[in-house]
């Protein structure tokens, strides 16, 4: 039975069929991967990180969790609105209408996280800040983007490269920073 299938597949027609199927699958997968790399639609469509940075607002003002624990966190709506309702331009702005509506109606904005790690990775911001890393080393220069983008694919090789560099010649530190259990549990 299986031999017949293979024999058929080895014919020219079979090879073409295999090729077509392969191409279809490959292009669908490529398109799928392309889609995952697009910045997702956010509830406030053109949230301008660069403007906020340009006003001299520190990262930790809106994402204070980064220096305290695992999650950097998103600012509460009331925190956003506390500034924005004092600025006439933003109170009236159509672009900020989603925020204004959410605050008035007591609804939640649903943000889509851009820089995330899979469920099986236990990432802790605090340790990285404490080790002297700056936000932009991983998240890129926010003064140049509107909606946050990932400057690199956050995979394990990328994590480990940095961990190993950070350990340098210190064997004990290397053991700790390359231990599976440091991130996976």
């Amino acid at each position, binding site marked *: *039975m299986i031999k017949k299938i293979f024999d058929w597949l080895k014919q020219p027609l079979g090879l073409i069929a295999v090729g077509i199927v392969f191409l279809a699958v490959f292009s669908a*997968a490529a398109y799928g991967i392309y889609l995952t790399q697009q910045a997702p639609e956010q509830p406030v469509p053109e949230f301008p990180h660069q403007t906020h940075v340009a006003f001299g607002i520190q990262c930790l003002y809106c994402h204070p*969790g980064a220096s305290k*624990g695992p999650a950097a966190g998103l600012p*509460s709506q*009331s925190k956003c609105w506390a500034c924005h309702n004092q600025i006439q331009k933003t109170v009236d702005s159509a672009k900020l209408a989603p925020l204004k509506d*959410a605050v008035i109606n007591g609804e939640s904005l649903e*943000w889509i996280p851009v820089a*995330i790690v899979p469920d099986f990775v236990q990432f802790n911001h605090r340790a990285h800040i404490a080790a002297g890393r700056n936000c932009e080393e991983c998240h890129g220069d926010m003064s140049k983007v509107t909606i946050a983008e990932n400057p690199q694919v956050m995979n394990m090789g990328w994590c480990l490269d940095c961990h190993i560099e950070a350990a340098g010649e210190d064997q004990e530190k290397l053991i700790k920073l390359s231990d599976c259990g440091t991130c996976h549990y």
Partner: protein
Amino acid sequence: MSEQFSRRDFLKLAGLGAATTAVLTGCGPASRYVTREPYQEMPEYNYVGQSTYYATTCRECAAGCGLVVRTYQGRAIKTEGNASHPLNLGKTCARGQATLHGLYNPDRVQGPSNGDWDAAIQLVADALKNNKPDEIAFLMGMAPDHLFDLVTDMANATGMNAPVRYGALGMFEARATLSKAAEALFGQAGLPFFDVGGAQVVLSFGANFLETWLSPVSYTRGFAGLREAKTKMRGKLIQFEARMSATGGKADEWIPLRPGTEALVALAIGRLAAEIRGGSMPRAFSSVDPLDVAARSGIKLEALEHIAEMVAHSSGVLAIPGGAALGQSNGQAVAEAVLALNAFADNLGKPGGVYLSALAPSQSDYSRPASAREMQEFVEKMASGAFKVLFVHGVNPVFELPASLGFKDALGSVEQVISFATFPDETAAEADFVFPDHHGLESWGYQRVVTGTSLPVLSGAQPVVSPYYNTRATADVLIAAAQIAGGAFAEALPYTDEVEFLQTKVSALMNEADGSFSALDAATFMAYFQQHGGWWKNTDSRLAPASSILNSNIDAAEAEFAGEGEFFLVPFVSPTLAEAGANKPWLQELPDPTTTVMWNTWVEINPETAHELGIESDDVVRVISEVGEVEAAVYLYPAIRPDTIAIPFGQGHTAYGRYAENRGANPANLLSVHFNASGDLAFAGMKVKVEKTGVKRPLSRLEGLGVYGGEGIELH
């Protein structure tokens, strides 16, 4: 592998398949598409990504242990014991851990059954206003909590029936008997406190104090103190019971006496010990004949003498009556006889001895939950139509009372039954309306600690998360309804809400001396009360009045047994599920400590007896009493008398959510209505028949290889 399908081909094909699968599914982690909602307004005591911890009180049983609950972004994640709470000192039992499976249970009552809280409150107000006060009745759970105080205040002011507290745990603990016996011993009603931790030799007559009895976390700590040889010798535990309980499993000596002879055995030990010690024979022990007792109880005289030797010569002897020993026709005599041993050991009010439990702050005398006889009177009133409206809160009497008491039928004679149940239990199913209370972790409150610590403790409760469903605090509903009803009701509850009521009650403690904290104003006091998880006095307030029990006569007749059948029936409370744990999936999946059975009900039979009857493990048998029958699979239990069978209580729900419903059997259906002298149900005073059904249903259990065939844990 066949000729046509070589290993090489297989690998090629498998490789192609794997590659395709990888390409199609490997487009990134599923969490790529999650969304995150920030707080609309950040609570000031919260911090992004940080856990917040709240002190509160565990409501899984009436003991009143302090909890500290870890919350994260508004969700309750984990319960731990409150390390500074005097009752449990940072520890919890399995039920306390699994309380989160109650909070986030998929089968909670999600809102008032009439759909609208304003209408619900109007309905309660009408019920209060349009009926005569003595036609209104409240049935509540065992815990003496703030809601009980609130309803009591209402009853005192309006002439409404005083609220009745009941719980199956109280029934199986025979609390009325313990209280009566304490009265016989000390001349004062109360719950005895047994200082297990300080004792050297503990004689337990059926007391399952390591399982669900009175205050299990506190007694377990006591047991650890008994065993640990830090400042004294390692203490011994001797357990007298017909079926080895989880507590009996820890005993150094387990003595399977014939059910009904506990009082005789206690007195015989007393007599033998008194003879060894010399001097005059206490009157309490004088009429008993040890040789006769040995024959009747099935304990060898040498064994009795050996124990009497220990009682006579050791210091720190402590005797505890409890469990099935008290739930018999002669239960009160058992309690008195066992307490007399303590008087003989001269341990009353001494470390390692018996005390009367400290009363909670602002409590003037002990108020115990209703005994079964009082519940019978209650049911009779319901059936006679004396109650026009019945409010039920914190208890599930349709399940927890023996079916033969007729509570379910009597509900039909009450015009209006309103349940405040958090879960859709059997009683809620029979009620006209269900106006759900919050879960314990969503509620305000306080609870008196009845026993288990030497200090008077008022344990504090506060919401650790905001209510998940459209539920409302029963106290708030009653206060609002009382305002609408007006008159004496409104005067009795002149509060805007539950929190104001609590503040009024709690701040009354401000002027008391020697408290765990003090404050100058009520608001600060209340804040501390929440922060610390309660308020307690720092002085040992256990009572130890003198006793004359040794000089009184104890009528130690053997217990009488109801029904015809060859087996004594020992119903016992499941140590992991207790009366209300069956709807929590992880409690169901905890193996029973003695049998390791999970998720079902079993009947324990001695292997020899089963062999004679031709019954094998996992055979379903029918157990028939004079009032009912239940079916369950057999567990061959090596540590039970051949003339006794035992069934755990806790399963057999007909409602109560997906994890509890239609699972196992309820032994309360076997119990007929017989009381002991204190009015407690003689639940262990039944004789039953056992019949084979010819059906086999394997019990899911941890021990042995997986019983369904397949893999399992082979205990090495």
